[in-house]
């Protein structure tokens, strides 16, 4: 799950996918941009998305998103909230469990 805190621009789903692919292309080149990434859900209100990628490509995708600095000449930051191989695990944050 990724959260994108922004200065003011709000991308829609297609622009978000374009942003992810361009981040991969900047860091890992054409091979990185060819990595199959799926956007499973995208909420425009909170700018949160769930992405799916093959497990061998996780490091590339994650590092590309971390190092992305600009979107449409504005500063932006990707914040990865959770990573897990199972979709069900993304529904809760295990660190915030109150026992």
């Amino acid at each position, binding site marked *: 799950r990724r959260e994108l805190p922004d200065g003011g621009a709000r991308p829609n789903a297609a622009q978000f996918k374009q942003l992810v692919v361009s981040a991969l292309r900047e860091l890992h080149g054409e091979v990185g941009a060819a990595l199959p990434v799926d956007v499973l859900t995208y909420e425009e209100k909170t700018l949160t998305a769930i992405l799916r990628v093959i497990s061998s490509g996780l490091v590339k995708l994650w*590092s590309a998103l*971390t190092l992305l*600095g600009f979107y449409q000449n504005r500063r932006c*930051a*990707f914040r990865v909230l959770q990573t897990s191989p199972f979709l069900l695990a993304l529904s809760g944050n295990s*660190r915030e469990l109150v026992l």
Partner: protein
Amino acid sequence: NSLFVCFSVGYSAVALNHVIDFKEKKQEIIKPVSPSELFPSLPIVQGTSKRIKVLTRLTLIVSDPSHCNLLRSTSANIRLYDIIAVFPKTEKLFHIACTTLDVDLVCINVTEKLPFYFRRPPVNMAIDRGIYFELLYTPAIKDSTMRRYTISNAISLMQICKGKNIVISSAAERSLELRGPYDVANLGLLFGLSESEAKAAVSTNCRATMLHGETRKTACGVVYTVKKPRKVEEEETTVPACKKAKTQ
């Protein structure tokens, strides 16, 4: 503001940096701003019940051996900083910093091509002394040429030190330039660290640096006791000697 972002993302200790550049003359080390003045109340770390620690840190950019004299001076202000880092610009200074200087961190330049190559002997000595090498990741977010320099310098460092004693930190000036701890650990994987080393670069190595700074601040000498044999006899003999001294 940026600190509140850190808290929400999951860091447990933050160090505020103060950079001193020695090219200008008459640089005086000013007292660090006490963290309690800046934030009246610190929020609680996510997941534990303790508050975030805010430390102060000093970075010295040295390009001349005479600048190192400041570290040996008895200026009171330098003792007030929790962590001291040095940023050597030449190979000789790198050697001096790794072997003799009393610092906690050695910063590795990521914004331009390194003018010197790392050699194994000073790096190994620094690892033995408990000094950590620091890499910054914020330039990698800002500019693509700096990204290349960051990665190339980091990889050359990894080849020499085999991934030990590395700390990755951000020189963030805005809250948007900060990244979460797991993201930064992933960047360590890019630099060539193994997974456990990358996670350590963000967590255990940083904590070790903090403790190193604390020991540097507090330790002035070491006293150790050695068990002596024939202790009882010695005590008896010293008592009459004292009595003798008094009468004399």
